[in-house]
């Protein structure tokens, strides 16, 4: 049994290559996000395996409004439906975004803090992170009272924890040992 991510990878890669060849990364990204969101809906998901629904009708459901039924993206969707991999749309969309960011040399970073961080401070953090990761930074700020003080920078796998909560936790585990 393979994991969904492993199954989704070749599709995401193929979609990404096609999009790049057509110079339509942004459009594909939007369409994939739409399809993923549609599949995220329980009602749509229940239709995915329904024999009363033809492949073309299911593709039509997932196609964003305005996208023609004979576009490259529609072909990609019908391929997914035919191969019964339409469940993987969310994973494919996520992997596509990853590939897109990789090609644009950007990285998405979430900054969690107890209270709003002033713009100049956020810019300083952004500049420091840009230096550290050698990437453009897409900074997303989130207010999380649980942090107590300081901030937590979350960049995918790497987490830089400068929060009061993190310190307290480390102190707790050190004392409990």
């Amino acid at each position, binding site marked *: 049994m393979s994991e969904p991510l*492993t199954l989704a990878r070749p599709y995401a890669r193929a979609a990404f290559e096609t999009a790049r060849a057509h110079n339509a990364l942004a459009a594909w990204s939007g369409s994939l996000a739409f399809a993923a969101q549609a599949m995220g809906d329980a009602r749509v998901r229940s239709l995915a395996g329904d024999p009363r629904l033809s492949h073309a009708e299911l593709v039509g459901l997932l196609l964003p409004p305005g996208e023609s039924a004979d576009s490259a993206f529609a072909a990609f969707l019908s391929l997914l439906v035919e191969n019964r991999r339409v469940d993987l749309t969310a994973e494919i969309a996520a992997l596509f975004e990853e590939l897109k960011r990789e090609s644009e040399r950007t990285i998405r970073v979430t900054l969690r803090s107890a209270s709003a961080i002033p713009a100049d401070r956020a810019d300083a953090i952004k500049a420091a992170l840009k230096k550290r990761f050698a990437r453009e930074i897409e900074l997303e700020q989130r207010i999380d009272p649980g942090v107590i003080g300081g901030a937590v920078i979350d960049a995918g796998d790497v987490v830089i924890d400068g929060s009061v909560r993190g310190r307290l936790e480390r102190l707790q585990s050190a004392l409990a040992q």
Partner: protein
Amino acid sequence: MATTLNPSEISELIRTRIEKVKLAAEARNEGTIVSVSDGIVRIHGLADVMSGEMIELPPAPNGTSTFALALNLERDSVGAVVLGEYEHLREGDTVKTTGRILEVPVGRGLLGRVVDALGNPIDGKGPIAAQQTSPIEKVAPGVIWRKSVSQPVQTGYKSVDSMIPIGRGQRELIIGDRQTGKTALAVDTIINQKSSGVKCIYVAIGQKQSSIANVVRKLEEFGALDHTIIVAASASESAAMQYIAPYSGCAMGEYFRDIGEDALIIYDDLTKQAWAYRQISLLLKRPPGREAYPGDVFYLHSRLLERAARVNEEYVEKHTKGAVKGKTGSLTALPVIETQAGDVSAFVPTNVISITDGQIFLETDLFNAGIRPAVNAGISVSRVGGAAQTKIVKKLSGGVKLALAQYRELAAFAQFASDLDAATRAQLERGQRVTELMKQKQYAPLSIAQLAISLYAAEKGYLDDLPIAKILPFEQALHAHFAANFGDWVKAANDKADWNDAIEATLKKGIEEFKKTGSW
């Protein structure tokens, strides 16, 4: 509890601990649990995790921290085995890397204690007073740091010490079916190290809790617990604990080896460790090979047993940064393997036989025939121990080895006793007497002097005119006679274990005197 709380001491302790905690912002690698099953977690993320690294999992409800060992690094996930309880883990939990590999406490504070595979005390005697920790997986010392085996480990068993001698730093396998006295041999060896200064580590893997408790009780009863560490991963503990227990025990033994002392470690038994490793490997979806074991089951045991070694003075000096000079250290390993119906050609037994420097075969047939210890002297060997034998035992053991070898060849003819020529009959008689002499009760290890007396009596034919049933009572009375009348000789033999004409003369005189006057 009798201990009183000392407030200053405790706040002092807390202060030093707080000072040790690094509170600067930390950068760490995080991932999320994708699945939890049978003690195996699959984790998404953790791009920088290293193989064998500890992964910090959410703590258990009672606050104890939980760790996992990263074993499978795959493209989209990390397969890790949870050390201990895993019921509180949920899909989606956040985990983080620690950058450390698993460590256990080591040092003298562990002597006399019973600990689990992670070095936590489980004997209810309070916390372990160990200042040091050591990683459980370490590379064995290289060739330039090694020294030949030249000092003996006395097991106290007549049959083993005379025919299959074990040297300090040797790896000698104890192999046999269930109920053949493998653990008894191991425990007696520990008991016999009371005065030798050899520290012992007994690693119990996959055994019943009651068996482990029995061993602990026996060691305590014979005063052998004070120089012993017991590492217990019982059958009820997770496969991960049973898998790492030998490595933990080995790390504790290496501490003594590296500071220029001698240690003895018993892995009881490695078959169960291989089973535990097989379970983990199959759950991690590693491809199964022969007998469903993974491909690296040989390496599992070879890397463990390679750490048993005798190291030279330079190694000890380097390791202790010059604090200990001119002393060699050793770690002797006695791995135990349980065979199924005497099948030594199964996968794990053949592996371990090929890794070790010899093996002691224990056989069900001999055991049932009343020959205990049930050592099969014909197929048991020690490849390096001969060089380590003491002079006196070496000189005297040749005769019994030969007598038994000849006896085995002729044993088939024993039923034609009346038709045989005198020489053959004499060999048969001698063989029967030596076989009888090699019998020994449990918890009754023999000193070097006692061993020498018995071997000399057998070799010089002093037993030939005794009825077989009288041999063991005769031996016992003879030992008592020497202890009472030749105290100085016994002491010298035990301390120096030398051999010369004067020693032989006393031995001869004592035995002849006893045969004339003694009763048994």
